[in-house]
């Protein structure tokens, strides 16, 4: 029996470590892995015990994107490959869930993140990268358009000019430059990546999860709203946050000058 393409390692801190596990292919996506990853995210979203999702790759790479040897994208007998369907069924649900699930998601980029693999890192709420990590939007080199949300996510992360540079040249950008551009939040030595990433994820997992979810909702909304509509929306989100147990605890802890013990509700 072959090993599972996605490894799921729950931590007792509320962090769920999710690993791409096709190390021989630099964790490139075949059909099976894309659906297994969708399921992992869906279950993590439902599971109340999970309060932060940390995503990484087994072996040398983070994720090399679509496996070009995989059947679903090659044309057989000269038939037209339906890449649109592949995007709709396999990648769009991943990006949509990462952006919309009301729990923090962190990409722990341990090596190369290419194509859809890079896009998945961009779709996470935070990115922490090893010094040896690289990001490549290689789509243009094989005659394709950056997918898995890249053309939507990249300009929002690094601005129009740099997003265009990455998309049009298809050249790799190293961790140092990615940090300089704001493409990643933190860069750490390769050997301390897991420790640092788990610490950051644990901090998130011990946070006020409902409020963090509302922050994500508000940021996502704000991207497509005018200021006045957003200010009204903000009133809604704060109304909801104001009723959480964690808000009561947060204020009490502040008054009593002690660290807050959030339960995520």
């Amino acid at each position, binding site marked *: 029996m072959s090993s599972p393409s996605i490894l799921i390692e729950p931590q007792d801190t509320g962090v769920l470590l999710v690993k791409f596990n096709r190390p021989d292919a630099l964790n490139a996506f075949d059909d099976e892995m894309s659906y297994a990853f969708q399921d992992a995210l869906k279950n993590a979203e439902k599971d109340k015990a999970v309060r932060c999702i940390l995503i990484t790759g087994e072996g040398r790479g983070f994720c090399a994107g679509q496996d070009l040897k995989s059947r679903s994208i090659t044309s057989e007998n000269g038939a037209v490959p339906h890449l649109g369907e592949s995007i709709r069924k396999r990648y769009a649900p991943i990006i949509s869930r990462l952006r919309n699930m009301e729990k923090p998601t962190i990409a722990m980029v341990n090596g190369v993140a290419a194509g859809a693999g890079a896009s998945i890192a961009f779709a996470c709420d935070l990115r922490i990268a090893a010094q040896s990590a690289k990001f490549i939007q290689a789509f243009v080199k094989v005659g394709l358009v950056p997918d898995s949300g890249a053309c939507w996510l990249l300009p929002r992360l690094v601005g129009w000019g740099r997003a265009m540079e990455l998309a049009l040249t298809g050249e790799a950008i190293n961790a140092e430059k990615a940090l300089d551009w704001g493409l990643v939040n933190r860069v750490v030595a390769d050997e301390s990546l897991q420790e640092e990433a788990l610490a950051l994820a644990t901090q998130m997992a011990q946070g006020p999860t409902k409020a963090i979810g509302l922050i994500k*909702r508000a940021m996502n909304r704000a991207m497509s709203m005018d200021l006045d509509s957003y200010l009204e929306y903000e009133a*809604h*989100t704060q*109304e*909801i946050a104001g009723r959480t147990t964690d808000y009561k605890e947060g204020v009490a802890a502040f008054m009593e000058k002690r660290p807050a013990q959030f339960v995520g509700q």
Partner: protein
Amino acid sequence: MTITQTPATNYQYILASREEAGAGRFIGIVQLNRPDVLNALSPDLMGELVEALETFDNDAAVGCMIVTGGEKVFAAGADIKRMAEASAVDMLLIDQLARWDRIRKLHKPVIAAVNGFALGGGCELTMMCDIIIAGENAKFGQPEINIGVIPGAGGTQRLTRAVGKAKAMELILTGRHFTAQEALDMGLITNVVPPELTIEEAKAMAKTIAGKPAIAVRLAKEAILKAFDTTIEGGLDYERKLFYLLFASADQKEGMAAFMEKRQPAWTGS
């Protein structure tokens, strides 16, 4: 003066309650309550719903009503199990959908507060309401085509009048679901809010309406609904006569006097 009726509390499939709206006014709230079957609209449930709404409609202290399915789901459709083996004659004789028509005859405004699925009969029920407030997670749809029928409680008529022919055709012929935002963009619904606040937003709006002069509210609703089944000429005539008629109400005298005296009006609903 005001006759206060409280709805029977022995409903099996719904929860009905009144909530104060200030100044002696109330709103009536009906929650569909068959969560184990996603609030499937069985004849029994619809019977209770219609009865509760009619009771509120006859309760002079109630100024506006809300129909909701609660936090998770509005109504995922009719009770298909009960219909699967029925013959055309059975359906005609039982004519369970006729009961739904009574919702249309209510005089007071009804607000649908929709979270989660509002499919088939559930979608049609929202469209029978006068105002629709939906949570961001709401999913609407008329999926009847997928089980070999078509909408039977007004879907082809009300959806078409709300969003136009081409969009209604697409939605009813493909049977696909559509989101709250899409419904808002199409003009099918009133407002989209975070799902945690759907019922509260509906209550706030219902209380605002309950605080307006009751006869004017009733005639405004009647005039707007007239727009759907008359010519523009006929509708304008109708509106004008209702406008003139309101000058026979005490609240018109009070409203205009209060306006000129720069004070808050004290409505009597007469």
